[in-house]
């Protein structure tokens, strides 16, 4: 099932940062990592991933660099130190949030009887 843009609102930045944890990637590989890592749920139009990458680059959270591969100019993106810090902070916040939501939504265990 594909997620609509609304479902990703507010989370796209950190998800894009997370796709770069393993190392530098090309834009298309980032898009694929986002789709595959979410079991196909976050399958965004490729063209809409680039504006977010462009903004993260300008914000200093990732850095893009051009190289020439097989005669073709390729742009790869990688996390900066600020991006790693941001990702670590967002991860911690997310885990805390998820624990709180799970605690509220999960049904209480049946009381034990003797």
């Amino acid at each position, binding site marked *: 099932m594909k997620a609509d843009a609304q479902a990703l609102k507010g989370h796209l930045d950190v998800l894009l940062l997370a796709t770069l944890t393993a190392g530098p990637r090309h834009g*298309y590989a980032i898009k694929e990592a986002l789709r595959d890592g979410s079991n196909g749920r976050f399958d965004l*139009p490729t*063209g809409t991933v680039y*504006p977010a990458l*462009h903004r993260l680059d300008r914000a200093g959270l990732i850095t893009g660099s051009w190289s020439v591969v097989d005669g073709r*100019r*390729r742009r790869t993106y990688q996390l900066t130190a600020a991006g790693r810090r941001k990702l670590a902070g967002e991860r911690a916040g997310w885990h805390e949030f998820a624990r709180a939501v799970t605690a509220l939504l999960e049904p209480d265990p049946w009381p034990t009887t003797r």
Partner: protein
Amino acid sequence: MADHPLIAGYIATLGDRLPAEAVDELADGLNETFQHHLRRGLTRSDAAAAAIAEFGRPDLVIAAFTRHSAGRRTAVRLLATAPVFAALWGTTLITAHAWTWPIPPGAAVAFGVTLLTVATALVVVAASNNPERTRLAGPASLVVILLDLAMLTAVAAAAPALTWPMALAVPASLARIALTARNLPRAIAP
């Protein structure tokens, strides 16, 4: 260099509306998507059509770039904080009886007209999907700084005494001047 006329046409459409730096990134991504579909065994025409379909309509991509642009985000931030400044300065002017200050009426009218104009410009930028319009955020930011400076100068020159609302409004405006000035290069950049 685009590898197929369909790709070239798509990139040209983006090139008409977006900065060159952004178009270079998108062209690289679109070509990579095209290559991906070629590797899957599609013909060149089918691969080009599939790449464009996967990339999304040009207006969608342009709207996404506009939404993420520094200019639009600047406009949204300035508009979001505007009610606070309106409340602070409104209270300051009323409690300090600003209508008794020795300020030429023409200057007060010019201030009001400029304020309305810049507010309109910021609303246009925040609501627009047109990247050309987001460039208004740079000059609008500069005008916001000048309006804050004008207000501070008026208070320093004409206010008879310091009031509590003024003691809040002045540092708030100084902070906005500093933050807006720091963000100005990004807001002005294409």
